[in-house]
């Protein structure tokens, strides 16, 4: 209620003020038209009196000021003409000082002063000096600021800058600088005087008003930056020290923050680089509540861009020791602002690191130093809990990863793992994943065991349970995602040199073995396949004296897969044993291959009880065994006997049947040296047939109708397979008999019509037709079969 009342009042007062200005302006114009100087001055003074109000906020005062400003322009034009008419500007300068109140008097004085300077009847510097001092008469913050702003505006184009028409014997750049600096100082003092006191509502209002006025003060710095005569030396010796003096001494938080920011924005980066020590020296002297880290970040941001846009200035950065100075300054700020929250300090380090990576990317020692400073700051503190601080640490650690696409570079930073140690375990894991993601995105490769060691140190939060891990169950999906990341990264650890590669494998193995039963199913397989790839590379090489031999690696593999028994993960282990068996076969290592088969078989017998799992496992065993050719007769017989034994024990009849006829392939290998035992093949097929028959009969009894003839058709196809391959034990008569059997079964009363087995049978018959039509030896063979 009160606020809107106040606003309404302000609107009213502003309207009144504007009306007053317009009213007096009307009469002033009339006087000007009549060439009546005295009258004109009288009305202009009255007009300007409206600016004496204290009732308006800066925002509204500005509107009033602009109206007056416009009128003063017209008055100024008149003054110029008046001078031509004969009344000297000196006299005019004298005349306007008779105005009653000081504020109108000074506005008029400045206006005449502008004309005075233009006339060149007096040295520019004298007029400027006079004006800037006279303005001291107004000490009210808002009124004073606008008055001095007016002075700044009208003097802007009349400064004795190099090359300006106002430069002369007595008038130099120094005078221009002095003038602006003084106006700036006085304006800052006025601005700071608007104290933030009183109840919160009043303070907030005041702060808002102060902010509205800040550009008036900042404008002076802008003007300074535009003075061409200010070179680096002048800036260094005079301009900067004076500005900083004012900034530090005013002891006002709002002003200090704004002006430092302004300073950095308006002056060229080249100057900042060369005055870095002075500039940074002011920072610890500022009020402790000033957000200096933002100021410093801004500075570093500007300098980074400067370096990026003009690479030829890089030597300058080194010459002025920019990094060292910034690093020291930041250290000092953090030290003096003792109660700065940790997130503030880390944000500063992030800015410094960003600067370093952009300006001195090749100086890994600098990068490491920044990380080291951060470590020091984080030491002797409990683990970070502030999520903003944690985010900043993650940003700090991510920056080198993004900059250096080659992960190995980041791995050489000795302080990197130390920073990570200060993260809580959740964030540590997230960071570990960021590292892995970076490796994957950049398609980087880690090629030495030492670096692998460092990498696994960094990602140890994913590799094993650390103390401090929360006791709560980790979300399963998250856990799986983590472990899949680890699995992926194992594949990018690679070296062409087998010896180094084996070292890498051993290093990885050492780490993943600490992972515990939950992690092993994820981490063991990629390691195993990495090792198998190495074995394959070594296969064709000679040299058993090499430290890296297939035999050694197989031993390692054996021990590694064994660890899965603690999970337990028998199905996975069985698959891996079979992979190793095949690889050992290819290396001609019969005992090693036998050992792996043994391990697989033991697992099958003792650990795999699920029917479906058994079926898959059996086919994997048969498939692998079928391909191995390294075994002598005895060993092969033992293994084959076992495999067929397992097939016989499968529970469901169809599974049993299929496994048995699959075993037939163990006795028939199609290459030239392969075993081709036609009799054993036939035995298997006949056994399969018996099982299929039994299955039919069981179905008849148990369900009242026989099952589909699919199994018979499958077996028929197997007969055809071996018939074609030239197994003399398979006769066309047998095939014919089987065909008739199937037809009978399909037509019997108890048959269950089944589209799928019908189609299968039809396709098979069609196939026989194709073979018959082939002609030649094949056609002859099939000729005896009637479909």
């Amino acid at each position, binding site marked *: 209620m009160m606020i809107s009342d106040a606003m309404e009042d302000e609107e009213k007062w502003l309207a009144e003020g504007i009306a007053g200005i317009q009213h007096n302006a009307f009469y002033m114009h009339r006087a000007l038209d009549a060439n009546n100087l005295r009258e004109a001055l009288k009305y202009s003074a009255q007009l300007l009196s409206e600016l004496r109000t204290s009732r308006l906020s800066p925002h509204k005062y500005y509107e009033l000021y602009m109206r007056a400003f416009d009128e003063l322009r017209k008055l100024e034009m008149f003054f110029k003409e008046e001078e031509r008419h004969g009344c000297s500007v000196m006299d005019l300068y004298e005349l306007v000082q008779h105005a009653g109140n000081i504020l109108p008097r000074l506005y008029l004085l400045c206006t005449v002063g502008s004309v005075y300077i233009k006339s060149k009847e007096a040295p520019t510097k004298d007029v400027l000096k006079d004006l800037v001092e006279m303005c001291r008469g107004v000490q009210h913050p808002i009124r004073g600021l606008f008055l001095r702003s007016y002075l700044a505006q009208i003097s802007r184009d009349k400064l004795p800058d190099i090359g300006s028409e106002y430069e002369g014997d007595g008038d130099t750049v120094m005078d221009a600088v002095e003038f602006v600096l003084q106006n700036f100082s006085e304006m800052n003092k006025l601005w700071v005087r608007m104290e933030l006191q009183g109840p919160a509502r009043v303070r907030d209002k005041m702060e808002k008003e102060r902010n509205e006025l800040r550009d008036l003060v900042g404008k002076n710095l802008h003007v300074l930056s535009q003075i061409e005569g200010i070179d680096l030396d002048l800036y260094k010796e005079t301009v900067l020290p004076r500005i900083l003096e004012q900034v530090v001494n005013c002891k006002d938080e709002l002003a200090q923050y704004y002006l430092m920011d302004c300073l950095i924005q308006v002056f060229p980066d080249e100057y900042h680089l060369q005055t870095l020590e002075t500039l940074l020296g002011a920072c610890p002297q500022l009020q402790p509540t000033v957000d200096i880290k933002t100021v410093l970040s801004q500075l570093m941001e500007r300098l980074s861009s400067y370096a990026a846009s003009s690479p030829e200035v890089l030597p300058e950065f080194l010459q002025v020791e920019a990094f060292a100075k910034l690093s020291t300054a930041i250290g000092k700020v953090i030290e003096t602002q003792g109660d700065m929250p940790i997130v503030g300090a880390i944000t500063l380090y992030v800015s410094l690191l960003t600067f370093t990576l952009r300006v001195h990317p090749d100086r890994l020692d600098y990068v490491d130093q920044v990380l080291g400073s951060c470590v020091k700051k984080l030491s002797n503190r409990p683990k970070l809990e502030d999520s903003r601080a944690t985010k900043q640490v993650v940003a700090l650690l991510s920056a080198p990863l993004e900059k250096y696409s080659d992960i190995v570079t980041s791995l050489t930073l000795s302080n990197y793992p130390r920073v990570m140690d200060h993260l809580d375990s959740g964030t540590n894991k997230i960071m570990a994943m960021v590292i892995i993601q970076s490796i994957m995105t950049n398609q980087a490769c880690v090629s030495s065991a030492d670096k692998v060691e460092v990498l696994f140190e960094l990602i140890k939060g994913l590799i094993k349970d650390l103390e401090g891990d929360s006791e709560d169950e980790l979300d399963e999906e998250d856990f799986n995602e983590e472990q899949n990341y680890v699995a992926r990264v194992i594949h990018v650890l690679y070296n062409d040199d087998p010896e180094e590669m084996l070292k890498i494998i051993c290093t990885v193995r050492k780490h993943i073995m600490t992972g515990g039963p939950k992690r092993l199913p994820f981490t063991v397989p990629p390691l195993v396949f990495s090792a198998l790839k190495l074995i394959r590379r070594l296969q064709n090489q000679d040299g058993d004296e090499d430290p890296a031999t297939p035999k050694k690696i197989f031993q390692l593999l054996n021990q590694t897969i064994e660890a899965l028994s603690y999970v337990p993960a028998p199905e996975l282990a069985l698959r891996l044993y079979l992979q190793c068996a095949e690889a050992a076969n290819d290396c001609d290592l019969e005992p090693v291959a036998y050992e792996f088969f043994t391990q697989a078989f033991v697992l099958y017998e003792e650990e795999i009880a699920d029917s479906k799992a058994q079926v898959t496992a059996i086919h994997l065993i048969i498939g692998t065994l079928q391909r191995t050719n390294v075994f002598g007769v005895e060993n092969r017989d033992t293994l084959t006997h076992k495999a067929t034994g397992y097939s016989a024990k499968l529970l469901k009849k169809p599974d049993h049947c299929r496994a048995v006829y699959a075993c037939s392939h163990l006795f028939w290998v199609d290459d030239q040296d392969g075993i081709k035992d036609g009799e054993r093949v036939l035995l298997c097929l006949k056994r399969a047939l018996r099982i299929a028959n039994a299955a039919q009969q069981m179905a008849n009894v148990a369900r009242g109708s026989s099952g589909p003839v699919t199994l018979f058709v499958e077996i028929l*196809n197997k007969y055809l397979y071996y018939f074609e391959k030239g197994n003399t034990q398979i006769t066309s008569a047998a095939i014919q008999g089987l065909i008739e059997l199937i037809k009978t079964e399909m037509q019997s009363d108890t048959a269950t019509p089944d589209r799928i087995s019908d189609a299968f049978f039809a396709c098979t018959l069609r196939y026989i037709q194709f073979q018959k039509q082939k002609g030649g030896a094949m056609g002859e063979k099939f000729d005896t079969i009637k479909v």
Partner: protein
Amino acid sequence: MVLVLAIGDLHIPNRAPDLPAKFKSMLVPGKIQHIICTGNLCIKEVHDYLKSLCPSLHITRGEYDEDSRYPETKTITIGQFKLGLCHGHQVVPWGDLDSLAMLQRQLDVDILVSGHTHQFKAYKHEAGVVINPGSATSAYSSITYDVNPSFVLMDIDGLRVVVYVYELIDGEVKVDKIDFKKTSTPAI
């Protein structure tokens, strides 16, 4: 014109970290009507990725697949063609074309797509075609040495199918194509 992507044996993350970048940039959503996958992805993330390329996704179970609910075999009809899908570790001897032909007869399909050997194959016989898209990540295989990453794209148009095989050789994607025409199926 129906585009069918045949892909499989990626073995992520057990044997390979990811699809090759060049393949990833080629496989964009919205261009393919069906994906048939021989299996051994192995993890859900790969499943989701394939699903994002095309919602019509058919997968059969490989022996390392995380999800054990994928079927052992699958048949799909696309246009005039019947396609059969099976990982292939179930068919002994592995990679034996005659044994695969038997499976083809059993499923009664024109085109049988199966994997496991990680080696691209496209084999035509009187009753149809057997295709092995290979391994899209050139994952280690005990059966085949030195594989290149590969996958297959089939363009089914009426009674004709053009099989494009994409292979990554020395960092470049090479494409080959094979034409098959189907004679209309005789009635049973």
